[in-house]
């Protein structure tokens, strides 16, 4: 194809995006659109999968049977969501196994929030409330993204996730109404998860490298700072209701703007964790690598068995 032809195709592609026509797997798309999507979708999938670990850390210690099944179902949903997202990436020609190995080799990123440890039961509440809350802001936006399979996966995920945040908030509510010890546990969890949750929306718009093109392609529809502000605005009243306070002395309601003003985010910490040096980065990847390596013989055996079965069937059909 000549450069001019590609240019024409790109122009037509952009026109369709502007007209809100979804892109589907076999449609022509700029190579960079494909690559950006694969990167973003797989990062999202990896986040779901790595995200199973911090919460999974409390499944065996859940304090009641009701909480145990809820948490187990929630962590399982994350496996499902990872799977839906890998499926979406596979429509673009990527392979799940390759994407997984990119994660294990440190070539692919995932949400940094999951590099923080879960130290108490209240962390399970805080994650459901804050981390899932922040994720939902982002995901609701993504249900309208321009790539069909990704948008459809997000619709499914949002539907299923609606219980996750409620599950977390209910845990916080129970703690907030509980003994002094439980209240302290809840406050401590909020203190530790608040800032990392704000960081989940990514660098500020001025610093964000991929944002402009992604907005133009409608892979992303709101800026990082916009979503972050939206999150703060809805979350503060929820914290008030719990009788807990967020660890930010600069936080105050701004009558004029109609939003909460909040203090500066520690971007040094953000980048330190993104670059792999947070409290649990190494543990998380090691745990995933262990599951992958120890599962290898299982996956191979199942495949070998299926092939034997197929051969036997073929032989049987021949002799009949």
């Amino acid at each position, binding site marked *: 194809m000549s450069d001019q032809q590609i240019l024409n195709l790109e122009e037509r592609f952009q026109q369709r995006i502007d007209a809100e026509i979804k892109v589907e797997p076999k449609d022509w798309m700029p190579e960079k659109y494909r690559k950006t999507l694969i990167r973003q979708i797989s990062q999202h999938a990896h986040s779901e*999968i790595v995200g*199973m*670990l911090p919460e*999974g850390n409390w*499944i*065996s*210690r*859940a*304090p*009641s*049977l*009701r*909480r*145990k*099944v809820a948490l*187990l*179902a929630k*962590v*399982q949903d994350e*496996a*499902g969501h*990872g*799977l839906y997202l*890998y499926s979406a990436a596979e429509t673009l020609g990527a392979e799940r196994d390759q994407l997984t190995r990119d994660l294990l080799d440190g070539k692919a990123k995932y949400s940094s929030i999951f590099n923080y440890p879960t130290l108490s*039961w209240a962390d399970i509440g805080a994650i459901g409330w804050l981390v899932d809350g922040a994720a939902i802001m982002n995901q609701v936006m993504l249900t309208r993204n321009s790539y069909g399979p990704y948008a459809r996966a997000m619709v499914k995920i949002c539907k299923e996730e609606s219980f996750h945040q409620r599950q977390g908030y209910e*845990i916080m509510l*129970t703690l907030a*109404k*509980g*003994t002094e*010890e*439980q209240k302290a546990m809840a406050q401590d969890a909020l203190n530790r998860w608040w800032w990392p949750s704000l960081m989940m929306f990514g660098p500020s718009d001025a610093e964000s490298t991929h944002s402009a093109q992604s907005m133009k392609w409608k892979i992303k529809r709101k800026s990082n700072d916009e979503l972050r502000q939206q999150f703060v605005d809805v979350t503060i009243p929820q914290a008030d209701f719990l009788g807990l306070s967020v660890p930010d002395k600069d936080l105050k309601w701004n009558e004029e703007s109609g939003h909460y003003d909040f203090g500066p985010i520690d971007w040094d910490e953000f980048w330190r964790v993104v670059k792999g040096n947070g409290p649990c980065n190494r543990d998380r990847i090691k*745990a995933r690598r*262990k*599951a992958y390596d*120890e*599962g*290898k*013989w*299982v*996956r*191979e*055996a*199942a495949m*070998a*068995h*299926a092939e*034997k079965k197929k051969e036997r069937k073929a032989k049987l059909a021949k002799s009949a």
Partner: protein
Amino acid sequence: MKERLFDYILQLGDNSLILGHRLSEWCGHGPILEVDMALTNISLDLIGQTRNYFQYAAKIEDKGRTEDDLAFLRTDRQYRNYLLVEQPNGDFAATIARQFYFDSFHLLFLQELVKSKDEQLAAIAAKSVKEVSYHLRFSSDWLIRLGDGTEESRTKMQEGVDDLWNFTAEFFLMNDLEKEMAAAGIGVDVQALEESYYAQIQEVFEAAKIQMPDYKPGQIGGKDGMHSEHLGHLLAEMQYMQRAYPGMEW
């Protein structure tokens, strides 16, 4: 009689609880996402069954204890689950062997329990029987895949079934409680299931090209509260919150 029934229900609930707990340890660590999710589904079924049993037991006991008191606030000697279900996950083959031995028994057992004179137990069994039919399908399919897969998987699968074989004896040696409950038409005459159990096992082993273990199974104790070393650790973890923060709502 009421006390005996209570104990009997606990025994049923404990098996589901402890095995459900063990399977939940796989969540996030399975060999592939699809299997990870399947193991969790089984775990959720089992813990759901536990809740049915314990809620019923708590009602029968009528002393204000809840399902959680029963699940989290007993000592190891008070748990009545089979030794098999408390055995650690090991590798995937060991988990499949454990699951297959239990599912095979569990299904036969529930198919009898649906006939119980105790309506509530019969109802719980009727609901569980569908779940467990699927569990057995899953575990026997995997046993066959691993047994008749690669050389490596066959070795591991054989080791798994050999190691856990010893614990299958416990299903069929009836203790006094079970005899009493069976006689009353409430519980199941498990001894009568033994023959068909081992016949079924053998059938699947043949399909899986797995050898029947070459020793007679005989290790018992769990049903009467004498457990393996593993249960204590499991309980320490499972009961952690309830023990560290007694009497609180979660």
